[in-house]
């Protein structure tokens, strides 16, 4: 097997899949890329046994089709240090020795029989929904940061995607904050829901373009596949029941606060410097037209207080939040103004972006308060 490929194209393709390679594993073969060459294409595959990603890279020349597994580390390093030159790969199909020739150099490494590489899963009986690349990218970006890391609660360690005949909803939560991103212009013929782990979503998000190119999302009960031009991501779904998030989003929130997002974000950043480092507790004291933000740390005798204008409808109230969560939420929003709806100091605050009505998109952020006791 012999083929020629551009070093920069190969490097770009491998960079998009290398993130899935597990740094430490008990299965040595998955420290390799699987190269499959046929026609005029090279399909490079990497897996951590949960997520499998393939990138398609055009070849300049191919003599003899076939497959080989090549150690990922050496290959990535050599490509990173090569100028944009054609690289000739020669594979001895008896010994799986791989020789690379590029520019003035020759590099040899030991490859492995492709049959040892785990089989790429095939999704049977899949349902497919097509997304625009920019929409899927936004849906993932808006929800993934709220996802938890707790191994004891695996269901919350992924993004929940709900397909209905009315809309498609993405949800991320760690039980302290929740992000819901909904597209009302997208529907699915079959009602379904899945929980997708963070790792494949991060990889797909980083490889999606901000354009309207098509991404096919296919899924069955156990796996999901994201296919876009040149990239294919297959991931095992998280098995478990997603918490009933709709039941905990309160409806009767009579206290409504409208504030400038950046002004509030900056004020919280300043005040939070003086908050207790472990709780990051800040208190919001809200009255008509005036929002006061307080932080204090008794141990260090730190104190901070800022006042800013706001529009407020409702009873004056005082509510505590973790500055960390509010900053996460506010920096992830795009709108100039935010509407924060609250009912009681022990009930969640619900944050909506205030912007020109985009009926296609519906974003809801929810943050749980910190209980304030005197």
């Amino acid at each position, binding site marked *: 097997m012999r083929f020629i490929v551009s070093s920069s194209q190969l490097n770009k393709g491998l960079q998009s899949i290398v993130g899935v390679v597990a740094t430490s594993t008990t299965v040595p073969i998955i420290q390799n890329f699987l190269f499959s060459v046929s026609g005029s294409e090279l399909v490079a595959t990497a897996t951590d046994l949960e997520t499998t990603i393939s990138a398609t890279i055009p070849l300049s020349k191919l003599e003899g089709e076939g497959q080989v597994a090549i150690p990922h580390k050496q290959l990535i390093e050599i490509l990173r240090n090569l100028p944009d030159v054609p690289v000739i790969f020669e594979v001895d199909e008896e010994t799986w020795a791989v020789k690379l020739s590029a520019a003035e150099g020759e590099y040899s490494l030991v490859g492995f029989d492709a049959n040892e590489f785990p089989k790429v899963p095939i999704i049977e009986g899949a349902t497919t929904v097509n997304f625009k690349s920019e929409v899927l990218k936004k849906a993932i970006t808006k929800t993934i940061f709220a996802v938890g890391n707790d191994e004891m609660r695996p269901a919350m360690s992924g993004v929940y995607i709900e397909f209905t005949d009315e809309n498609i909803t993405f949800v991320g939560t760690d*039980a*302290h904050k929740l992000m819901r991103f909904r597209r009302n212009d997208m529907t699915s013929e079959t009602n379904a829901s899945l929980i997708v782990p963070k790792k494949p979503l991060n990889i797909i998000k980083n490889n999606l373009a901000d354009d309207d190119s098509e991404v096919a999302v296919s899924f069955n009960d156990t796996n999901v596949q994201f296919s876009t031009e040149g990239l294919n991501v297959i991931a095992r779904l998280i098995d478990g029941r997603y*918490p009933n*998030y709709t039941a905990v989003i309160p409806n009767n929130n009579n206290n409504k606060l409208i504030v400038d997002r950046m002004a509030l974000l900056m004020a919280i950043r300043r005040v939070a410097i003086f908050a*207790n480092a472990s709780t990051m507790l800040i208190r919001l004291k809200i009255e008509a037209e005036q929002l006061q933000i307080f932080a204090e740390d008794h141990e260090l005798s730190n104190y901070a207080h800022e006042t800013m204008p706001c529009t407020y409808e409702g009873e004056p109230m005082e509510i505590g939040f973790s500055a960390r969560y509010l900053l996460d939420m506010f920096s992830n929003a795009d709108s100039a103004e935010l509407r924060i709806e609250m009912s009681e100091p022990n009930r969640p605050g619900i944050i909506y972006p205030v912007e020109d009505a985009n009926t296609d998109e519906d974003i809801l952020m929810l943050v*749980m308060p*910190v*209980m304030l*006791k*005197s």
Partner: protein
Amino acid sequence: MIALIDCNNFYASCERVFNPRLRHKAVIVLSNNDGCVVARSNEAKALGIGMGVPVFKVKDIIERNGVEVLSSNYALYGDMSQRVMQTIATLVPDMEVYSIDEAFLDLSNFKLHDVEKLAHEIRQRVWQWVGISISIGIAPTKTLAKLANHLAKKNTKYNGVCWLKDRNKIDEILQTFPVGEVWGIGRQMTAKCNSFGINTAYQLTQKGDAWIRGNFTIVGLRTVQELRGIACIELQQNFVAKQSICTSRSFGKMISDFDPLAEAVTNFAVRCAEKLRQQKSVANNITVFINTNRFRNDLPQHSQSVVITMPVASSSSQEIVNYAIKALKSIYKNNYQYKKAGVIVSGIVEESSVQTSLFDDVDREKQSKLMKTIDLLNHKMGKDTVYISRQKSDKIEWKNRRDKLSPSYTTRWDDLIEAKASEEITPYNRIKKSEND
């Protein structure tokens, strides 16, 4: 001016207060499971029994000299410590309780000519009120006060109070004081000092600040400044809540079954929860660890720990026990003989600022009331009057070996010493009787 008060041979002294038979005898107190020597009376020290030595190594000395051996009785020592501290506070209220038997005092509000008299008064009062003898070191900084205390203990000429008054005297002492015995200088720093030819505390004080900082960081520089008489380490009078709490024990005998292990972990978790409630805080994380006996090479080894983050920070015994058992289940393996287990609670925050959770179905208010009631009952009626059923079983396999435990003279009604006065022997009655006659 700072004073450091240190109780002399504290554990052994506590035992002697209620058991006069132990006076003027060699007494040693053993660690958990009666393993090592953790306290010695002066008589025991004179016999050459070292600190921290395993008891089996000094068995001959013990038998030959009739040394009194006791298991550690922390209920007694804790209570006696509180009495000592309370007594000191009647004379000097500005105090930092540094350990079970040590306290720093801020004497800056006292006139210099009163200081020595005050120190002797403190010694006298603690002896009279509690029955514990103490040594006092007085100096301009905490580090020097610690050094002064060391001298007060070692040299009888000080009569229990050593006051490092003037700079020349301090320098004179530092010139012979080994650098490794200075408070705040550990084994590594000592080795490094020695490698630079620095063997005494005085030699270290003569080095430049930049050199000290470069080699021993700001922490080392602080210690040196303190030796020079410049106070850098303040008295911590305010109560600082602990950032993590650990309760762990080595078992009296090795355990391989899950149930007794779970019973031990339940007890450790309950203690952690109680300590959290005492300091009015709650914890976010629970770590459970289990270890086999690493000295038993003939047995299969397994040591593992796991951390669980609770959905909502808590100090509830029930909740912490539930998560601790869940954690234990995830690391426990059959067919291993475990020697030690422990529970650590961390991510501690004040109970007044708890991050709520979206999917929390626990009635926190009710739970808090229940814990308050249990604490009140256990305080009034005795430890573990109300307990979690898993805390106690018929087979108490995991408990410490404490074969030579003294009674809890001050904390258990049943152990209270009864004093009986008979007509024949009381001097008062004798006088009365003779008057009547």
